[in-house]
């Protein structure tokens, strides 16, 4: 396939559109990226039908409806490489909070006519349904990591997205530790790197947008949070946000359920 541009599709499942927007937010690189790949399907940006085979499928969002559960199978069958972008696609996203709740009750809270609503009882990551070749973390993803991912793909190498903690990025950025200096609850020690330790740079604790790092010691962090005065409810809520369905966070949230 030398000389031929890879055919790329960008697909959306249940999500806020923010991760695919990150591609359009690459203002400096967008036209260059569009020149290096053939963006064959990207309904948020352009009118074109979803037909044929893709060299690369970028998938945003989690599976929350019977229709989506079917659609992801068809995309997988037609994609050489399938990469998920963002917390919804890699762990289920914030809508996975419904996995721990009574969905009928949820529907009745939001909708006057629940019988009109078709939804599964769970929001699940793409990898629960099909084989995923690579996962890009974040709620939202980092556009720098997205460019790295696409560049690596075009060059045929592995993307450089270190699986270490946000805590390490924070040290590299030279921020003062908010937990040590101010007792602020921070998920930095257990959260996957990628954002550049934004929150501690803005005087707040990390709230886990990028999900668990590799081998996170969540119990140890919870012990420290508790020593700093956090209630079980607070710890439960800290682990119950955009990556609540990632196994390490889900287990830790459950251990502190009110």
């Amino acid at each position, binding site marked *: 396939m030398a000389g031929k541009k890879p055919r790329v599709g960008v697909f*959306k*499942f249940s*999500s*806020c*559109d*923010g*991760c*695919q*927007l*990150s591609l*359009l*937010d690459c*203002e*400096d690189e*967008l*036209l260059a990226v*569009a020149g290096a790949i053939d*963006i064959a399907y990207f*309904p*948020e*940006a*352009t*009118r*074109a*039908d*979803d037909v044929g085979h893709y060299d690369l499928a970028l998938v945003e969002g989690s599976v*929350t409806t019977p229709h*989506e559960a079917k659609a992801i199978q068809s995309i997988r069958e037609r994609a050489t490489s399938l990469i998920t972008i963002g917390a919804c696609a890699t762990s289920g*996203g*914030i*809508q996975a*909070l*419904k996995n721990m*709740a009574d969905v009928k*009750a*949820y*529907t009745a*809270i*939001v*909708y*006057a*006519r629940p019988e*009109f*609503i078709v*939804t599964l009882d769970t*929001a699940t990551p793409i990898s629960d349904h099909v084989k995923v070749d690579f996962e890009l973390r974040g*709620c*939202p993803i980092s*556009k720098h990591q997205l460019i790295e991912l696409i560049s690596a793909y075009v060059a045929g190498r592995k993307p450089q997205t270190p699986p270490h903690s946000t805590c390490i990025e924070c040290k590299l950025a030279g921020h003062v530790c908010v937990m040590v200096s101010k007792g602020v609850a921070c998920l930095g020690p257990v959260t996957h790197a990628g*954002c550049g330790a*934004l*929150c501690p*740079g*803005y*005087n*707040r604790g990390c*709230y886990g*947008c990028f999900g668990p790092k590799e081998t996170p010691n969540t119990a140890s962090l919870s012990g420290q949070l508790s020593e700093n005065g956090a209630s079980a409810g607070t710890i439960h*809520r800290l682990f119950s*946000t955009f990556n609540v369905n990632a196994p390490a966070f889900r287990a830790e949230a459950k251990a502190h359920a009110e």
Partner: protein
Amino acid sequence: MPNKTIQVDLLARVEGEGAFKVVVENGRVTGTEFRIFEPPRFFEAFLRGRQYSEAPDITARICGICPVAYQMSSVHAIEAAFGVNVDDRIRTLRRLLYCGEWIESHVLHVAMLHAPDFLGFEGAFDMAAAGHDAAVKMALELKKAGNEIVSVLGGREVHPINVRVGGFYKAPAKRDFAHLRESLLRARDLAERFVDWTASFDFPDKERDYTFVSLRHPNEYPMNNGQIVSNRGLNIAASQFNDHFREEHVAHSNALQGFMTDGSAYLCGPLARYNLNRHLLSERALAAAKRAGLQETCLNPFKSIIVRAVETLYAVDEALRIIDGYEEPDAAYAEVVPRDAVGMAATEAPRGLLFHRYRLTADGAIAEAQIVPPTSQNQPTIEADLASFIGDLLDRPEDEIRHLCEQTIRNYDPCISCATHFLKLDIVRT
């Protein structure tokens, strides 16, 4: 007239997943349905039991295009409930953040999503490849300036991390704006050209007598504060929203639809803001609007693309004014003391009025949340536009009808993630 069916399975270039259906009987349009298939995500349900402090971060995730709007409506509503007074300098910083979102969201829609309709392209990529690369590059640089505001003040472009109830986690130092100021000065020239570019398009000759609804503030073009007003004499506080507006759940949509309590449809968004607040635009934005041929009242929804460009120029101008007059606040945020209370607020998202209502308890928990996004409110008006605009086109080629339908829907920059999201066009003729 022969009976036939026209169908588009996924309306492209909108934020989300929606569909459209037109029913034609004996050559007359007898029904229109704007359908939203975006899977429900139940935000109002899972906000229950969360702490008030989590609302700005959680509600931001409703929409990756306009997270600032959700953060703003949520913090204002919660502050209203708890009786928090926010320093004027914090209020001004919020306005700056909103300017950034208006710029990035409007430019995205105008250049990448809507302009291809006017110029006859599938999207911005083929539009750029076919000789419009200078316009697309201009738009990208302009959009970048909007994103720079959001990332300097908010930490990042999508789902900013610096907004909290009471203010910000960290207030910027004046020097933090040095580079941004240079970008905005360049962006101001680009925005002038951006307005002229949109004014050069051909516009379908379509008008309707709309009810326009937006915020109105005594001395500023509305973003964060003001009364909710209309061109039919409505003038209420956000706390009276539910007395004058209601939401209905129809079978064909996963989004609730907004109506006035008398059952009539209304229009919110840039066109409504412009028509109700034109006199509050900056001199430069007003001059550009005049140059673009916008009258005092614009009833042609296709010209909303010019209004978005004018608002983009206004937002760049306003951001520069704020930065030049910026003084660091004494504290980045006001202290917040929870109590049992209900709080409501509406702010102007890029797409229009965004209403939030929270019932909160003394321990800071959210007992109830109600969120009414602009696209829900515009759905009935979009349906009425379609019914009205395609009636005299029914004997034209289907491609042409389909094209006008899509363009009509995009006039509203529908954010279906917000309203819930999937556009599918389906014309049924019997």
